[in-house]
């Protein structure tokens, strides 16, 4: 069972910071590697939004399932996917978590029930409904956490999925990461109702808006939601209000927003704020911070080396796994 209470001892607080920093440093390195052309294709950074994945993952057990979007590095790391296999995937190496075939947008890991990296906006919500339906029909007390951006709320699949999950009382935690922009389209330019959680409420899904920059607030809300879901209460919905500090992808010139707006949000950044708070409360000192950074740097160095040493999947295997090869 999920503990409904957040036990904020020093150890847990430092764990939260560490997890957010792992994502931050991983993605900063990815951006560099992108300019070095080690990573190609689309690269969507989660920088600024780390508190959401980290806060929610604290409330899941290994048996629970996770479904995410193309902006999923943070979710995969927080779910416990090894950074080595993730970085190898970013490089397209066959040692990657999806044999290198998916890249940044399609991280998969059956072992941790991480069902992707889905690059169709809204397309993963029905999958989450189905995973939860399977759990419910098999009598398993498991939860499916489904992460998506506020842009998905304009898609039919969002509405179909919320209705199905509510109608069938399925164990889904819907986590909307409202970063105010869908590529360059600001929320108020695309939605008549800009409070996404109200859309969920209209399907009779219990929903709330949470400060997505506050990892503790996220964890508290997710803990409450997951406990209610596990108790058989049907789906829950969190609208996490956040902001993406970086471009939508590496191809985005950010013509649609002011630098000042980005700067103002950076001041509210989840890593910055939580780090300050830990220092103020005496849970973290500069030496402690340096130790964490050094550990992450070492983990990253190992991951990059692993990816660098990785190999390309042989072209002969190009069509392997299109279908299941069955032994005669």
């Amino acid at each position: 069972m999920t503990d409904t209470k957040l036990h904020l001892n020093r150890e847990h607080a430092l764990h939260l910071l560490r997890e957010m920093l792992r994502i931050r440093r991983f993605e900063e390195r990815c951006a560099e590697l992108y300019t070095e052309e080690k990573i190609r294709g689309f690269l969507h950074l989660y920088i600024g939004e780390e508190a959401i994945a980290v806060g929610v993952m604290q409330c899941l057990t290994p048996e629970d399932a996770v479904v995410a979007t193309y902006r999923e590095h943070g979710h995969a790391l927080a779910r416990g996917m090894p950074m080595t296999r993730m970085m190898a995937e970013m490089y397209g190496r066959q040692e990657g978590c999806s044999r290198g075939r998916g890249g940044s947008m399609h991280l998969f890991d059956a072992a941790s029930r991480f069902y992707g990296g889905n690059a169709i906006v809204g397309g993963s919500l029905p999958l989450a409904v189905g995973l939860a339906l399977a759990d419910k029909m098999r009598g398993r007390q498991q939860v499916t956490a489904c992460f998506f951006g506020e842009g998905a709320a304009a898609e039919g699949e969002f509405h179909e999925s919320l209705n199905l999950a509510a109608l069938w009382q399925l164990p889904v935690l819907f986590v909307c990461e409202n970063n105010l922009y869908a590529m360059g389209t600001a929320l108020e330019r695309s939605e008549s109702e800009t409070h996404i959680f109200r859309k969920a409420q209209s399907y009779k899904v219990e929903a709330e808006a949470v400060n997505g920059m506050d990892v503790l607030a996220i964890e508290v809300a997710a803990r409450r939601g997951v406990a209610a879901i596990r108790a058989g209460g049907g789906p829950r919905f969190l609208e996490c209000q956040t902001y993406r500090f970086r471009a939508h992808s590496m191809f985005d010139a950010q013509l649609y927003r002011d630098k000042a707006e980005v700067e103002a949000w950076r001041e509210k950044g989840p890593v910055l704020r939580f780090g300050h708070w830990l220092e103020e409360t005496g849970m973290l000192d500069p030496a402690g911070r340096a130790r964490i950074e050094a550990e992450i740097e070492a983990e990253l160095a190992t991951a990059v080396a692993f990816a660098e040493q990785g190999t390309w999947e042989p072209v002969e295997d190009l069509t392997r796994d299109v279908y299941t090869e069955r032994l005669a």
Partner: protein
Amino acid sequence: MSAETRETSYREAVREAIRDALRRDPRVFLMGEDVGRYGGCYAVTKGLYDEFGPERIRDTPLSESGFTGAGIGAAMGGMRPIVEIMTVNFSLLALDQIVNNAATIRHMSGGQLNVPVVIRMACGAGRQLAAQHSHSLEAWYAHIPGIKVVAPATLEDARGMLWTALEDPDPVVIFEHVMLYNRTAQLASDAGPVSIEGAAVRRAGGDLTLITYGGSLYKTLEAAEALAGEGIAAEVIDLRSLRPLDDATIMASVARTHRALIVDEGWRSGSLAAEISARIMEQAFWELDAPVGRVCSAEVPIPYPKHLEDAALPQVEGIVAAAKAVTGR
């Protein structure tokens, strides 16, 4: 020694296949619009709701993308869902889930995840349902790597393909032509699972090969009978599986007859008939004594009035005429 047989409709054969699957495996369930209380829009699932209950005969809202995706998710979660979509036209609202998820996930995840979902849908024209309920879009699905596509035309296949499809670790789409549901024939009372692979020669003949599938099979067999009356022995191949295609059976037949005509209810442009014709050209060009012929639907949205609908679809006379042209008689 032949088993006892019983007069059965195609509809009953599909229903029996679903019932059998639900009994065999607790992971199997059926979901779709009006499959439960209503009994199915083509009455295929009539009675199953009472027998198996609302959990396993699951009525869904009008959310093709939502429930098809839920079927895909449930399959990844360990279930064996049968998703019923009323007709292929409505499946267009679920194309995202079928093409972007069901078909990709195994390969894109590096072989980690399987999607053992079965998606059944009705297709085809003939009931005067006009231009939004009469499509034959099987070729679109057959275009997609990662899914398997079958078209049971006989009672044995209607009865037997479903279980095999459910046992398959990959997504399988089953097309049931609407004009087949009322067809009746003798079906062995012990009829059971059949392979979902490979084409079948439904009639042997040495003068030309007629290649078809699904709802066009019976028109083609009728045409073959008429041709026999004129001294032309046509072989009739029922493709059964539209993806993968059974090239070997087609080429072996063409190597015997040296002439081929494809009968396909899809529109000619970019059709399955086009694909098969290209394959014959690639693999059996030197066997041919004449260009490959095609009988397809006229390139119009299927019209409502009977005479126009008939005119739009492949018909026996047209098949006979095209076959004669291919044989040079």
